């Protein structure tokens, strides 16, 4: 089996006394992975360690089987990185900046221009790129950053908060780019705070907290692992009192509570049996809406981060 795209082995970094990342060991295989965690959990530190911009205090990171170090520069042909800070070569025009980056990567002047144009098209900025970066809005600057990451058509994209400051239109565009990159067999590790947007791109995630790995994998797997927690199903029904009374007889239902209007919240230790049972009520037209609570990223995030304090 080939080496994983990203491998971290006991990767740790402190800034003086301040903890950045402590002992992260994880392998990432191709696909789109959301890098999540509260502020200060080590997301940006991880990105900087993966790109060799900061040196680990302990452990090491590998990209495509190559150990990350300032001298292993060749691997960056396969990696595109968009930093999280709002920084740029302010005095440059967007297209000139990209062309310069392509030229430092070894392109000739013409090839660099073509490459810059191609990357700008991908982020939908081909007309606006002649503006100076210092005069661009935050969202435009973010898109130039993403274009820069896409410049060399890399296999791995490391995007630090790429959606931050983008308007809904460009956000949708960027999300589609990330999705397409994953669908084409590439790897994307991107951090974001906007969970419902992460959710719309991928269900794989890597959750950091206090510099440690809290969870890694598919959302549904992670939810499944959270067994201690009883699962809840919310239904709304005109005959909620009957349903509640009937279900309370079952030993797998541990609690019912009534919400506003016709809401009924069922708590269970065996989700599948409860769902099976509810199908019948549904078929009989007694359920107007039904939803498994807690199975979205937001509540999983809350549970994991909350329980790890």
């Amino acid at each position, binding site marked *: 089996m080939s080496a994983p795209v990203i491998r971290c082995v006991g990767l740790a970094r402190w800034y003086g006394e301040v903890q950045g990342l402590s002992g992260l060991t994880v392998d990432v295989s191709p696909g789109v992975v959301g890098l999540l965690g509260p502020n200060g959990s080590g997301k940006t530190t991880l990105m900087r360690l993966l790109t060799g911009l*900061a040196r680990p205090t302990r452990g090491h990171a590998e990209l495509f089987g190559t150990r990350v170090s300032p*001298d292993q520069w060749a691997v960056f042909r396969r990696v595109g990185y968009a930093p999280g800070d709002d920084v740029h070569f302010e005095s440059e025009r967007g297209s000139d900046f990209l062309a310069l980056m392509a*030229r*430092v*990567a070894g392109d000739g002047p013409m090839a*660099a221009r073509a490459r810059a144009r191609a990357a700008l098209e991908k982020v939908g900025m081909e007309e606006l790129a002649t503006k100076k970066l210092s005069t661009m809005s935050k969202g435009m600057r973010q898109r130039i950053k993403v274009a820069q990451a896409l410049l060399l058509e890399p296999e791995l994209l490391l995007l630090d908060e790429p959606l931050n400051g983008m308007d809904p239109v460009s956000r949708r565009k960027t999300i589609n780019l990330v999705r397409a990159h994953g669908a084409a067999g590439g790897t994307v590790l991107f951090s974001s705070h906007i969970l419902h947007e992460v959710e719309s791109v991928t269900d794989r995630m890597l959750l950091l907290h206090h510099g440690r790995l809290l969870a890694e994998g598919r959302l549904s797997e992670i939810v499944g692992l959270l067994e201690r927690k009883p699962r809840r199903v919310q239904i709304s029904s005109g005959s909620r009192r009957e349903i509640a009374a009937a279900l309370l007889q079952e030993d797998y239902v541990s609690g019912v509570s009534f919400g506003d209007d016709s809401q009924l919240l069922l708590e269970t230790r065996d989700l599948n049996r409860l769902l099976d049972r509810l199908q019948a009520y549904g078929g009989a037209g007694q359920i107007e809406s039904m939803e498994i609570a807690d199975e979205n990223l937001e509540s999983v995030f809350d549970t994991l981060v909350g329980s790890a304090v």
Partner: protein
Amino acid sequence: MSFSPQVLAVQAYSFRRRMLSWKALPALMVALVPTFMALVFRFFAPHEQGGTPTPYRMYGEILAPMCLYFVLPFLSMLVMLPILGELYEKGAIAYLLTRPAPRWVPLLGLYSGGLLALLPLAVLCATLPALILSPISGGVELRFWLQRVVFLSLVLWIGAAPYGALCLFLGVWSRKAVLWALALLIGWGSIAGSITGPLRALSPHRYLFGLLRNWLDLSNTLGQFSVPDPDPPGTLLSLLVLAGYVLAFLVLAYQAIRTRDVL
């Protein structure tokens, strides 16, 4: 695999950045200080009564050493310090360091671009005063003037190489690079390099002054801006020492750029 096109690309950026922004203005103003002095000297000094130096001596014995003492260190600092300083300050250097190229490629590109930007400044600094002073210099032949202008430009530009490399290194190495540069360029350079003592042999200023003395035919005597050197260095030795300094500072800068974290 040759990296020279990559270095040249960064060099072009660095040169453009130094020359075509308002940041070039303070450097330009410092470079024009000798010109201003020459203007004042030409139009206000009482040349007839004697007592003032001849224009030719004014250029060689006052303006040229003054350029070496004050103009050159300040020019180097104003041009070279921000090159890496500004990239590191906010972290824009991250883009250059994540290119598929060794880190000395951007370093060399930024350095040579800055050095290139210093060339017109050095030439301006040496030429304009001569243009102002030569018409009133009476008997002095044009070729002597030409020789002095060319050599002064050259000495200034050669001097910018070690000073600039030192500034480049300081820009990566320290957040208070300005203070270090001030202490090292003025203290270790101009001052230690002209005071007799053990430090003098180590100061690049001594070797630059050596070049100036040899190429401009200045006397090794006490003057307004010169302290006699008991053992004046020869041209070759001076060039070698200065080249050694350039190399050493660039290596230091490379080490710093390899190890400093981008935060």
